């Protein structure tokens, strides 16, 4: 490789925080049933955490797989729809909608 090629693109600078954020918050292995959060939208985050409380297994039982729905969640338009689904699920599961935090997968 010629030295001209080596200098032809930028590199080696410290990673941009945005690149780190995109990867660390949105990529990487997600383990269902453990504490996991998508921090891109704090409002959605609390929704997710509430779903988490119902525990991953219960959520799966109820037919919801939010951990696969990141694209849907982060695309922005689904907020109210998601909130509505969450409310219905919580009612159906007899879960308190107030944030009483407990997990059932001991």
């Amino acid at each position, binding site marked *: 490789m010629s030295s001209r090629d080596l200098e032809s*693109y930028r590199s080696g600078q410290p990673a941009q925080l*945005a690149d780190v954020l995109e990867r*660390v918050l949105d990529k*990487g*292995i997600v383990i269902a049933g453990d504490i996991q959060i998508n921090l891109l939208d*704090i409002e959605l985050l609390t929704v997710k955490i509430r779903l988490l409380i119902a525990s991953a297994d219960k959520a799966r039982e109820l037919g919801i797989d939010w951990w696969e729905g990141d694209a849907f969640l982060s695309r922005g338009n689904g907020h109210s729809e998601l909130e509505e689904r969450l409310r219905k699920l919580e009612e159906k599961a007899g879960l308190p909608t107030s944030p009483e935090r407990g997990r059932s997968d001991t």
Partner: protein
Amino acid sequence: MSSADGAAICTNGLGWYLYGVVGAGDKSPRLDAKGLAVDPGHDVELVVEGPLAGVTSRVSLEEFGEEMLPDRLGDAAWLEEKISAHERVLERVLHELSIVPCRFCTVYRSERELRRFLAERKDALQAALDRVHGQVELGVKAFVDRKRFAAGEASRNEKIRDLQERAGSAEGGTAYLERRRLEQLVSSEVERLRSTASRDIHSRLLARADDGLTLALQAPEVSGRDNQMIFHGAYLVDVSEAEFKATLGSLAVEYRDLGVELELTGPWPPYNFVPTELRAS
């Protein structure tokens, strides 16, 4: 906190933060530097379970527990510090070992739960690890300098040349309209460039990588660059990186005349090349 839950919580209020998973048979990465972890009071350590090892550190559940997280996440300084620590630990490991990175804030409440995870998902984790063995992720971005692109286009595109001349010689409202028409034409040419260049760049880099994908383009406020991003990709590349970088170098030379600059980021832990969800096996 409900009482049913209390038994599962470590009595000392410490949990296990999992950064990623490595092969236990591999050499041990040097992780003894102080203050490396997301909770700087604790060291990064390997928890070996069968053929796998979790790269972990203890964290205060007061800080990383479910209750506290929503508040913490609203604290940009906290978030930046912890995310940087997460990445720093993984990069340290990446220097020496292949790793399957976990998403930020993967926290176990007890060592037992952590070990159970490593044991129960052994096959899926091993498969993920095999896939990224000896490889790292590299990021590639391309930006177009609109002025340089337009200047270059003018020598190739008669319409742009005409409009530039007319906008230059006209006055008042006419000049404004000509400038707008010129801007619109340049925009549509940039769009055409974006479409052809991203296909070309991606396919040629992919040929030098084990795998690759395109990522969402970043707006200038995210990328920190004035120039428009026209391509953003991530590639799973052999740790030597040589072939890939040679091709990137050639691409950069070819595209320079169009006012396009290429940028390499990484090496990253292979965030984009591990399963997003790990189901129980």
